[in-house]
């Protein structure tokens, strides 16, 4: 996944909020990144640091909270945990799975002055 593009989008969301709320400096940004999303957290951190360099979020801490992946197993007829795409159902070992949680990528909140 292209973390640079996503980092640009995060920065844009942060700058929009800064403008709206009259924030002087953003100290930290909390992201919620699902286990099954296409984001590699370390790459995201690196890219965000780079793109935020001359902005209101320069030097801001990026806190990444990972949310658990889950899927509906058609065989078991129940919701099961799924740590990564392509993994088998922990219950039956099959692959009749439909992802239900863990693909999200959100900006949750920020700390600013």
């Amino acid at each position, binding site marked *: 996944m*292209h973390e640079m593009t*996503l980092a640009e989008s*995060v920065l844009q969301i942060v700058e929009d*909020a800064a403008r709206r709320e009259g924030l*002087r400096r953003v100290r930290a940004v909390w992201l919620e990144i699902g286990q099954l999303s*296409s984001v590699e957290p370390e790459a995201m951190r690196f890219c965000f640091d780079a793109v935020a360099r*001359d902005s209101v979020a320069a030097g801001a801490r990026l806190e990444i909270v990972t949310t658990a992946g889950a899927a509906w197993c058609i065989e078991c007829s129940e919701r099961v945990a799924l740590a990564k*795409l392509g993994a088998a159902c922990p219950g039956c070992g099959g692959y009749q799975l*439909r992802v239900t949680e863990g693909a999200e990528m959100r900006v949750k909140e*920020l700390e600013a002055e």
Partner: protein
Amino acid sequence: MCSTCGCGSGEVGVEGEAHAHEHRHSDGTVHTHGQDGELAHVHAHGHEHGAYSLEPVSGPAHAHAPGLEPSRMLRIEQDILAKNDAYAAQNRSAFEQRGIFALNLVSSPGAGKTALLVRTIRALGDRFEISVIEGDQQTSHDAERIRATGAPAVQINTGKGCHLDAHMVGHALARLDPPQDAILMIENVGNLVCPAAFDLGEAHKVVVLSVTEGEDKPLKYPDMFRRASLMLLNKIDLLPYLEFDLERCVDYAHRTNPGLRIIGVSAVTGEGIAEWLVWLEQGAGRARAARGEIAALPDSGPAGPGVAVVRSLIG
């Protein structure tokens, strides 16, 4: 810089006239257009990078004493791709209103997307209007190949970008202006990773995998195969020369996406193409029928509900 996709400033472009110089209609009449247009740069949407910066901050060693400035928490709760999703929703709504069946074709480079499109246009071009948006980092080779068949095509060059996004597609649509009830093929940049998360407003993603790439591609790139509705397994004419395990490939594909429809095709020999055309015709038919239903809604259309109902009955 494009504020949605973050591509380098001035590098993203939408190229050219939709039509080739000579456009041959199905009834044999021919008309010509002027020269292909200049590369038009996608304009930035007033997003000033660094407009809200403060005194220069060069890193952790900051002028303020840490912890003494009061700070507050601000809830945001916004999807990172919210802006792209909004553009995609606009595209999708425009497609639905005009009965356009839009597909996002994805694959690694060289799987045969363009060859399949050329084959498809030659087979269906007299029964359906087919319009094409091409995406590549550079060149308009693919758009030119499409135009040579007589179908209109517009090329998006992403510059350094690795995927198309809904904002770019919106610009291309303004230039291409597909007719009502058309099939719109969006050929994405050859890449099985990045395009996966970028909704363009399409009805379906169609993933093209060629038999020369190895049967375990679906396991290597599960996100893309999970999001596709149809997989075209291309170059099946080469199977006698390869050690490609067809059954295993289908099994792997269904592991990532149990509901994935799979059609084996050859753009060169035409094998399997008929089944792909049936899938296309069914989808285009559904899009056209849905347009009729939208037109039949009480508050749609300037002529009022009565005319709209008649319009929907005659398709």
